[in-house]
């Protein structure tokens, strides 16, 4: 077996992180850029080399670097595995990762924390690649937590802003709740299998066809909890919209294309466990569908361009979950891939818009940008159409595959899931076109872009005080303008991929080969029931969903282009509903009131105050005072008066004599 030196793939970005992180502050900017880009490019080249390499290596291909943790006979190794699923993920991570690194060179070009930013980005790549390459749960968990860390650092990149620091913390903690599930799942796995290695666990499952549900359900559900945290699904999605506080390339890379899809990847990776548990699959599907719909409704009422995209991401991730939940793992992964293209593109394009407007993120202050930033406009258009599901763009192909799989799934609720998914597709089209229209069409509604906006310093001037002083005079105070080429090239690349990416998995019903599903048949298969369905149904469903997308477009066109006064009328009419949606169903507030506040209350007053101060400290004091009190009482004998001392002596002498005479004390001697 050839040694592919898989460890090199993550280690190069790590080296980049170390160099930039430790000495980046003192390096010239060009060198920082070079290090970061090389660190991002090398893994991509390596992956390409593997793909282009001679023959296909054994699948899965495993490389073991040695033990990481061991106790007794249990051990978890630094071991990497390569199979088709990994390869797909590697392509996405390294490819999109590199493209976004490139973009960032332009976007972050004038930040004082430039070196810091790129070291974090490289760190992220390192952990993401670890996550993808891991051969066991524990190593996967390293990546899993690691990307969370990178995400935390990058969200809080503008750490002087309280909101950014808050958002970073929130992301980390909510992710930790998911990790709690992941950890428990691992403990259960160890308890049952004695190992955490994928191969060994899946091998054991394979050998015991009788194992259904039971502990496997428990494991699967705990894994789902982990996945909901990382992939921002109900109930743990709350961190992702806030994560938009980070720089836009971060949103594109981490909070759209790669990290948030880790949950989907994990479900696909462990699908052998899910396959044994109908309950867990159903849970995944329901969570996915619910999230997709729920987030889409919120997305309709958001005005911050990045927040719209954030909710859209949550919603699309829901689709992926739905795909996995109906055991169509390849469909889920396929959507993951296409979503990486178009959502990254959307974010980058949005970043370009924001960049153009000097930091403005509120869509109500945009409009009519179509001509001023044409390349951004066109690439974004491609993305909007792709996500809305217009054939033959990438989004259409992957989303339809999922909806189709849901429809034909033997589960009782498959049709319901499909219906909700379809409705969501319409909503998606609506809010994406709403964004499109509000941003690019109509009149420019913004104030003069030179002025910093109210709710936050402009994007270039956000890091720290030193930075503000340096950055402000250098800001783009010259009106709306197109971004530099270093930012546009990534847009174009991603636009192309968004347009043609669907070809990989063009459904057989429409004359394609669905190469992607076959490619993944080994790692994350489509389950067999899909094949039983007929191709005609698939075609019909595709048409239906296209029509729904068109409907969404139409409504958006009506409301935000044709009759711009309509939205206000509608909001006035359906005031309560609008408030509900615009306030994101008050979920943050509810969580705050139901979880955070009680926990803090208990911590502060019940535990910290009552128990710690009151009982434990107080108990100590009471014991001390009691002893002192007895001492004081004894000291009362010490009246200083000789006669009373003599009286005391006489009394005890008498007692002593009595005791001696009657022999009392002999009996009262405790043993």
């Amino acid at each position, binding site marked *: 077996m050839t040694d592919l030196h898989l460890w090199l793939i993550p280690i190069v970005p790590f080296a980049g992180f170390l160099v930039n992180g430790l000495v980046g502050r003192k390096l010239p900017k060009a060198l920082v850029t070079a290090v970061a880009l090389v660190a991002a490019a090398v893994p991509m080249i390596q992956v390409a080399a593997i793909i282009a390499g001679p023959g296909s290596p054994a699948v899965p291909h495993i490389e073991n670097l040695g033990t990481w943790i061991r106790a007794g006979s249990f051990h978890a190794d630094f071991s990497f595995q390569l199979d088709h699923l990994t390869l797909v993920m590697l392509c996405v991570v390294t490819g999109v990762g590199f493209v976004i690194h490139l973009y960032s060179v332009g976007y972050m070009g004038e930040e004082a924390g430039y070196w810091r930013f790129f070291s974090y980005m490289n760190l992220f790549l390192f952990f993401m690649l670890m996550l993808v390459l891991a051969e066991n749960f524990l190593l996967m968990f390293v990546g899993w937590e690691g990307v969370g860390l990178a995400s935390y650092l990058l969200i809080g990149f503008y750490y002087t802003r309280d909101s950014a620091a808050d958002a970073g913390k929130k992301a980390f903690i909510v992710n930790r709740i998911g990790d709690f599930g992941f950890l428990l799942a691992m403990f259960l796995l160890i308890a049952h299998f004695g190992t955490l290695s994928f191969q060994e666990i899946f091998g054991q499952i394979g050998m015991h066809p009788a194992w259904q549900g039971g502990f496997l359900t428990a494991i699967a559900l705990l894994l789902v909890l982990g996945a909901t945290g990382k992939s921002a699904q109900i109930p743990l999605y709350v961190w992702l919209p806030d994560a938009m506080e980070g720089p836009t390339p971060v949103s594109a890379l981490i909070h759209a294309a790669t990290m948030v899809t880790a949950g989907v990847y994990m479900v696909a990776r462990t699908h052998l466990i899910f396959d044994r548990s109908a309950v867990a699959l159903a849970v995944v599907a329901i969570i996915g569908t619910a999230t997709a719909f729920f987030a889409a409704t919120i997305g309709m009422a958001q005005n911050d361009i990045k927040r719209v995209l954030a909710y859209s991401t949550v919603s699309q991730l829901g689709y992926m979950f739905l795909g996995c939940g109906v055991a169509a793992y390849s469909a889920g992964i396929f959507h993951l891939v296409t979503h990486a293209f178009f959502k990254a593109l959307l974010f980058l394009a949005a970043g370009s818009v924001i960049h153009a407007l000097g930091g403005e993120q509120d869509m109500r202050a945009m409009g009519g940008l179509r001509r001023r930033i044409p390349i951004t406009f066109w690439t974004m258009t491609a993305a909007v159409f792709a996500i809305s599901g217009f054939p033959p763009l990438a989004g259409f192909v992957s989303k339809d595959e999922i909806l189709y799989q849901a429809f034909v799934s033997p589960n009782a609720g498959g049709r319901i899931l499909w219906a909700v998914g379809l409705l969501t597709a319409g909503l998606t089209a609506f809010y994406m076109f709403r964004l499109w229209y509000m941003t690019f069409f109509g009149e420019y509604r913004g104030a003069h872009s030179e002025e910093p906006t109210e709710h936050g310093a402009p994007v270039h001037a956000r890091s720290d005080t030193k930075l503000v002083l340096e950055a402000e005079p250098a800001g783009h105070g010259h009106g709306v303008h197109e971004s530099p080429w270093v930012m546009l090239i990534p847009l174009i690349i991603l636009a192309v991929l968004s347009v043609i990416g669907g070809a990989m998995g063009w459904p057989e019903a429409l004359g394609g080969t669905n190469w992607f599903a076959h490619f993944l048949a080994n790692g994350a298969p489509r389950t067999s029931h899909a094949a039983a369905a007929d191709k005609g149904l698939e075609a019909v469903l595709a048409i239906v969903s296209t029509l729904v997308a068109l409907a969404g477009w139409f409504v958006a066109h009506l409301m935000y282009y044709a009759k711009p006064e309509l939205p206000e009328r509608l909001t006035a009419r359906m005031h309560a509903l609008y408030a509900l949606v615009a306030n994101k169903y008050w979920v943050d507030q509810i969580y705050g009131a139901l979880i955070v506040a009680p926990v803090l209350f208990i911590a502060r007053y019940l535990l910290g105050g009552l128990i710690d101060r009151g009982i434990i400290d107080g108990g100590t004091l009471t014991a*001390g005072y009691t*002893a*002192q009190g*007895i*001492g*004081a009482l*004894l*000291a009362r*004998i*010490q009246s*200083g008066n*000789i006669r009373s*001392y*003599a009286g*005391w*002596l006489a009394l*005890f*002498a008498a007692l*002593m*004599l009595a*005791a*001696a*005479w009657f*022999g009392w*004390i*002999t009996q*009262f*001697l*405790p*043993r």
Partner: protein
Amino acid sequence: MNDALRILPEIVLVIAGVVLMLADAMMAKQSSRKPLGWLAVVGALAALAASLWQYELPPGTAYFGVVQTDAFSVFFHVLIACIVLVSLLITIDAVKDSTEGLGELFALMLFGAVGMMFMSGATELLLVFVALEISSISTYIMAGFRRKSAKSPESALKYFLLGSFATAFFLYGIALIFGATGTTRIEAIAAAVGAGNTPALIYVGLAMIIIGLGFKVSAAPFHVWTPDVYEGAPSPVVALMSTGPKAAAFAVLLRIAYGAFPLLHTHWVPALWWLAVLSMTIGNLGALRQRNVKRMLAYSSIAHAGYLLVAFTALSAEGIAAASFYAVSYAAMNVGIFAVISHAGEYDDRLTLIDDYRGLAYRSPLLGGAMAFFLISLIGIPFTGGFFGKFYVFAAALHSGLVWLTIIGLINSGIAAYYYLRVVTAVYSRPAEASPVMAVPRPSMPLLLALFLTAAATLVLGIVPTGVLARARQAAQTYPAFSQTAGTPLSER
């Protein structure tokens, strides 16, 4: 002549005392009396040498069986000689040249030591009584020596009146024992008790003797005099009287209990058990609230008497050895701490409250460190004599099956840590801004010597106790009747 050798240390001390008196009388009225102190030190050293030499003597009695020289008495002779020696050094350091009656003070210390030594060697209750009175009366007088303060005569008066009161009980006890047995010789009493004479009288008499001696060792509930007397008496005197007469009284108690009434141990062991428990508890709890250092140490000395009684109660050779060892280690650390107090308080007790000692370590690192060290030993921290003594005592007690006594005792030593540590922390905390910054006088040579001797002894007893331990064990062999019972729980005897 052979008889005289058996009381050689006492003779040496008497001669030294008399020489001292004569020298004092011959000296000019205004001249410094400190050289007399050195003379006394020489006397004490000679007595120490004589005591050590007595280890060479084969065990035996002298003067018609009135006094006995054995490993046990010699052990205490050596201890008492050492205590007096160091107390003399402290006195030399503490008192001013002008202090009146200094010559008498030194002489009294030496004469008092004669009494203590006779106590530890006497086998005739009459001699015990006389010796006890010598040691007591000399301490009564010394307690009143700090005459500038109204407290000192008061202290002397209280000690004197209550001491005499207790002596009356002690004497009554002897009378009753005499009545029951017809003799006042210890072995003879033991024999007579075996012959079964009027047990009621013996019980009551024994109880009265225990009352009297309990008073002398300040065991609760006969401890009431202790805090007042310690507070008023001059510190160097307290150094002596909290250790010397106490050790001697314990020796007497041991000899009487183990020598004269071994057969009645079922009677006196419970009594001592209760005395031990009460002493430890009352001593430690009482000390908790004290603000005056000397009062606090007085309570602590009550508690330590309790620990010593624990060893008695163990009723084994180990117990005797432990008691003897504990007496030594307690003497070392207690004399040491009073050396510090005496110097810091400059004899007239300028520093009386614990708060006055705040920041002592800042004013004088040496004194502060020494004080902390002795306190730590009193707490019973390992590698100090205090710890090993306590350990040995409770090991003996537990070995004899006294589980509860051991538990009570060690919990008590835990409580005790509080008040000792309060002083340690005071010594080591920064002096308050408002407090008058008191310049502690530079330690003089005798003080340094005293501190060195006591600290070294405390440390040696904690780290390499083997030598003293062997002597203590040898002393315990004086009572072979009990060494066989070691190890069997009390209930099985």
